């Protein structure tokens, strides 16, 4: 068990390093000169001596590998550099925005998972009947609509027409609990609905195959109620692919926050990332992408560990 965990940790670190390298490589390919961010060209005359000096300070003249080495060396020590635009440490920019995106993502995941489970189970239980058909139709619809369209629709319906929720903006949890809840509902729903559709399908398919298992028949033949058999006997063995896909989808979800945060004017990491790209604030882009990838890899490692909790058979195999 300890050995497995150790191995996982090594793999996790290796993945994060690989990602950091790729991020650095790709951002270095972006067109535009970071110095332009600091001293915008076209406004009066540029002091070429100053430009050269800044370039030297930022190490932009070094070969690619040296630049990467310097950057990652600092990152390992917790120094992500300073924003070219705001001159603030990148890390504090990230940590200021992170709680917003994290809340959005967590609420979206919880909403989609906790709706998908009963919907998928009901659908499988009533396979081929009216309940199943209606759930499947809604799911099909949600799958074919991208989140930002759902988002626009939600803004239009619930915020502009019904006026029950704010259309855009963000109230921090520390400012007002109800305000915070109100501001998270719409963007989280927009993110959650397409995920909800995927998860519902998954739970349905897995439940249908689990319901064919002999142990489900045995459980029924013991006289246990349908609800008990469905939730206690059939759901847990059917949840493995749900857990995997939820883990994998965190990536898509974090990506989705970029668009959704923009749409709902939510001041999260995604919005910051877009800003940074627009202003060629390369070092911020690198920091945020690395941060998000690390979160993603950590979550997927956690998913592997959750497997072992859910299915005791895996525990034995990997021990």
């Amino acid at each position, binding site marked *: 068990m300890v050995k497995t965990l150790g191995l996982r940790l090594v793999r996790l670190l290796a993945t994060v390093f690989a990602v950091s390298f790729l991020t650095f490589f790709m951002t270095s390919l972006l067109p535009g000169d970071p110095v332009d961010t600091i001293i915008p060209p076209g406004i009066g005359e540029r002091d070429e001596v100053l430009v050269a000096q800044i370039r030297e300070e930022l190490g932009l003249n070094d070969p690619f590998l040296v630049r990467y080495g310097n950057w990652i060396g600092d990152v390992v020590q917790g120094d992500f550099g300073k924003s070219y635009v705001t001159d603030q440490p990148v890390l504090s920019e990230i940590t200021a925005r992170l709680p917003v995106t994290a809340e959005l993502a967590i609420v979206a995941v919880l909403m989609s998972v906790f709706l998908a489970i009963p919907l998928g189970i009901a659908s499988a239980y009533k396979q081929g009947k009216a309940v199943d058909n209606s759930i499947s139709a809604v799911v099909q619809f949600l799958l074919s609509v991208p989140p930002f369209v759902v988002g626009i629709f939600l803004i239009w319906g619930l915020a502009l027409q019904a006026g029950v929720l704010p259309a855009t903006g963000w109230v921090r949890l520390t400012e007002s609990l109800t305000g915070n809840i109100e501001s998270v509902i719409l963007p989280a729903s927009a993110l959650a609905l397409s995920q909800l559709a995927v998860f519902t399908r998954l739970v349905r398919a897995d439940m249908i195959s689990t319901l*064919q298992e*002999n*142990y489900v028949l045995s*459980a029924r*033949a013991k*006289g246990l109620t349908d609800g008990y058999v469905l939730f*206690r006997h059939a759901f847990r063995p059917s949840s493995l692919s749900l857990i995997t896909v939820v883990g994998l989808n965190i990536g898509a979800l974090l990506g989705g926050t970029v668009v959704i945060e923009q749409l709902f004017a939510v001041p999260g990491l995604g919005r910051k990332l877009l800003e940074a790209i627009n202003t060629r604030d390369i070092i911020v882009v690198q920091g945020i992408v690395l941060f998000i990838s690390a979160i993603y890899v950590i979550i997927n490692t956690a998913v592997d560990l959750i497997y072992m909790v*859910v299915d005791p058979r895996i525990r034995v195999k990997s021990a």
Partner: protein
Amino acid sequence: MNTSLPDTPLLEVENLSTTFMTPRGPLTAVNGVNLTLQKGQTYGLVGESGSGKTVFSRSMLQLNVSSNVQTTGSVKFQGEELLTKTRKEMQSIWGKEISMVFQDPMTSLNPVMKVGTQVIEHIRHHLGLGKKEARELGIELLRSVQIPEPEARMDVYPHECSGGMRQRICIAIALACGSKLLIADEPTTALDVTVQHQILNLLDFQRRDRDMSMVLVTHDLGVIAGRADHVAVMYAGRLVEVADTKTLFAAPKMPYTEALLRSIPRMDQPAHTRLLSISGRPPDLANPPKGCAFAPRCAYAQEQCENEQPPITTHADGSQSACWIPLGTPASRDALQKNLSAGRPQTLAMHNVASTTSEVK
């Protein structure tokens, strides 16, 4: 037995039929089955794989899984009709009045739940016991099915137990709430030969000890010998012979029963002795033959057998069979002779194996 009128039978099945609506048309897996089981008795239900035993035992309890299934007839348990009961009503019979033990202990326990939970969950449900009392009872049950260190076993997962151990656990589950009837569907088919006997003996002992009745389903007549009071032989969804066990073994009336008897592995023969496996395959139930379903494989079959469905008839020794030419009659000997000289392959096959087995002896 036929002199004293017994009070209400524990289980009375009348004209039970089960049909699946398949893409290829209706498939009648159980066809007009009648069966009466008295309290405290064991009924053996025998037939090759695919003959409809599993569907029959599930049909009695409305436990068929598919939604395209239709069951007709009557199943009375202690005089009460089961087939008209709602699912809710059945849930208070399943596991409490009638319990099942299934064929494959490797798959009939939930892999992600601890053994203990699975042993006691329905005890708590049916008998309303608290967690602690139910656990005590669970440990007691595991002990009674001879599981060593029952306390420790409560907290392991099924995959940590051997096949025999798992079947013992399944039996403990079946016994837990004091069921009056146990339906064991091939309880030992998936197990090693040595374990098979232990499990069968355990079932028999527990049944007597708890004054239960049992329907013992198997494809192996050898399993039934000495353990069942009556035997029903099933072929292609119908009962083709019903008799008390002694009579059936001593004087089978139906050629199919005879063939099954010949295919019992015997302890007194060398292990590699070739067993008679019945040549040919059972008929396609979606497309059943016009006459006796066994006729195409039968050594004795005559023209009538191919064309007309034989009715169930009762013989002088009390046994019943559905056969136009019952074994032990002059007509049966004539039919065999006639088929032999005509060179009917099924007849020759049986004859050859019959002579080689007697040489081995």
